[in-house]
């Protein structure tokens, strides 16, 4: 059997997910076992498709990128969405709550534009595996590559972030009266944000069966309605579970 042919593509993004992956101490070792195809961020050499696996960071930001994404899909046996931009639109999706025309005018002062609404990859093509997070976890990306190398199906957790606070013994910030989306957010990140004195602001999108109603009830004691809406409009407002609150349906 030949080597696994892997490509890394970046669309409109901040490149923070690819960087987090490259930063992982095992990354260089792991890629030495694959046939590294396209990786524009770090190399000049281009290897033509088809690819066994394509990792895609970012979301398609204009009509050209939408076409490019479709071509990559055609050439890839497996397509992995790398990071929140690719999985859910990430914080860029906040823009969807603005009138696009007005927003573009604010920045470009009337210049013509080709701007797509912010949508994740699966709004355009089929996605086989999701690596959530803003940034995506470098450890999960490396772990996914390793699983694929030995022909195993990659798997990452679906439980809530709270589970990981308990594991690392972080004092719960929600209990201290700081709003936190951890109870409804997908873990796997190791809950670094509450541990850094911040809170989970939901960058990995909803966990499995999130109890959003109960979360909103708890938050309602700490925040005004508009603040709750803003919180749900951060990374994953397009997700079914978060959509209603993000669109302002809060009592």
């Amino acid at each position, binding site marked *: 059997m030949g080597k696994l042919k892997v490509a890394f593509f970046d669309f409109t993004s901040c490149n923070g997910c690819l960087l987090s992956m490259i930063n992982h101490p095992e990354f260089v070792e792991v890629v030495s076992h694959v046939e590294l195809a396209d990786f524009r961020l770090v190399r000049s050499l281009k290897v033509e498709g088809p690819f066994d696996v394509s990792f895609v960071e970012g979301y398609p930001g204009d009509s050209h990128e939408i076409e490019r994404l479709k071509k990559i899909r055609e050439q890839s046996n497996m397509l992995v969405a790398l990071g929140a931009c690719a999985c859910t639109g990430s914080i860029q999706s906040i823009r969807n709550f603005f009138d696009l025309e007005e927003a573009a005018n604010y920045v470009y002062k009337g210049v013509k534009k080709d701007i797509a609404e912010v949508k994740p990859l699966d709004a355009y093509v089929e996605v086989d595996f999701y690596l959530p997070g803003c940034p995506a976890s470098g450890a999960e990306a490396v772990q996914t590559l390793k699983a694929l190398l030995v022909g195993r199906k990659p798997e990452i957790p679906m439980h809530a972030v709270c589970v990981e606070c308990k594991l690392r013994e972080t004092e719960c910030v929600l209990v201290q009266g700081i709003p936190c989306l951890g109870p409804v957010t997908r873990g796997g990140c190791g809950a*670094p944000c509450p*541990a850094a004195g911040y809170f989970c602001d939901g960058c990995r999108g909803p966990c499995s069966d999130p109890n959003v109603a109960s979360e909103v009830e708890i938050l309602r004691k700490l925040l005004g309605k508009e*603040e709750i809406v803003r919180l749900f409009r951060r990374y994953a407002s397009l997700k079914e579970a978060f959509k209603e609150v993000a669109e302002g349906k809060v009592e």
Partner: protein
Amino acid sequence: MSSHEVELITRVEGHAVYAVDLEKGEVKSVRFAPVEGARLFEAWLRQRHYDEVYFFASRICGFCPVSHNLASVKAVEAALQVQPSEQTVKLRKIMNFGEHLQSHCIHVFFLSLPDFVGAESAFALLPQYGEEVKAAVEFRDHANYLIEAVGGRPVHPMATAVGGFRRLPTPTQIAEMLSRARQMKKLLEKLVDFYSKAKVPEFSRETEYLGLQSQLEYALYDGCLASTKGFKAEVEAYKQHIEEEVREYSTAKYYTREGKPFMVGALARFNLNYDQLSDDAKETAETLGLKHPTYNSFHNTTAQLVEMVHDVDEVLKILEEFQDSGLKDERPPKVEVKPGKGTASVEAPRGTLIHSYEMDGNGLLREVDIVTPTAMSLNNVEADMRVLVKENLNLPREKLASLVEALIRAYDPCISCSVHFLRK
């Protein structure tokens, strides 16, 4: 190269194309244009709360999230008239240095050096220079640790707060940072040696070199705007001095000062503030044959390495002090929300970065303007390209293309940062 030939450039952050238009052996036009989808950060940061925008701002760029995070939180502080403590400023400087160190390290050794030794990528360097590449990887890991220990994680830190930090590094982390900074100092010897193998192309075109300047130090975290042409202004007044311009062919925002291109970044800082570099940094410049001032834009990469030496020296100073006296248990101050305007700047790895906000009485942003270093240098990239192509017209097409690409890459352009770009 001929008209309509557009190449997507590799080994840079984000997507950009360049084109050179030749007619009858003359350079007719050149352009360098990022083509990533427009992200419109300035538009959607409006109506968001001051206590979240500096986390969103970091998402402008995964290569310099700390710079955006800091410029943003400083702009918020300016609007709210909050004065961060001395300790806070020192901790922020560690993050800022950490980012410069990791970003420069990646750019010098993984993105640019391959050009100067004729390799396709850092992967291609491995067989011959395994040891050296390993040293660069180690160096980068240490730099990332500096950001992580203070900011919470290397990409998109979350421990910063208005006026302070949400969580302070522990004594163990301070000791670990210090030990790693000392290792970085050692690794630099090897890295400088490695870099001296690079053949940096000959080129010269003098321009205006602009950056932050301070009487106290080689300015990175704070200062006023200054240039090698004697220009000086408060950061708040940037709009009166730096003109924004929309070009027909790229709908990008390009910047000029008094109608002319200027350069920001490591080389600009080197030319502007050379005297304030650490002694070892100056010595490194001499070892690498980097004269002050230098008008060869390819040497931006060399200047980055010189800055790496300086930055490690500065980090060591702060950490040694923290190691001796320990950190005070400071919490972010209580903030009184009021309407106001705030403009602030830091030196990002690629140059001066400005965030400017107007805030309402509810703490929501109303007006946002962000000027990124890559955007400020764009005009200068094109001006350089024009001269470089003209001087090398005799080269075969492919060689000329690689040379132009190497020039662009030497600028270390950060396309995600140039939020203003649109495809034609």
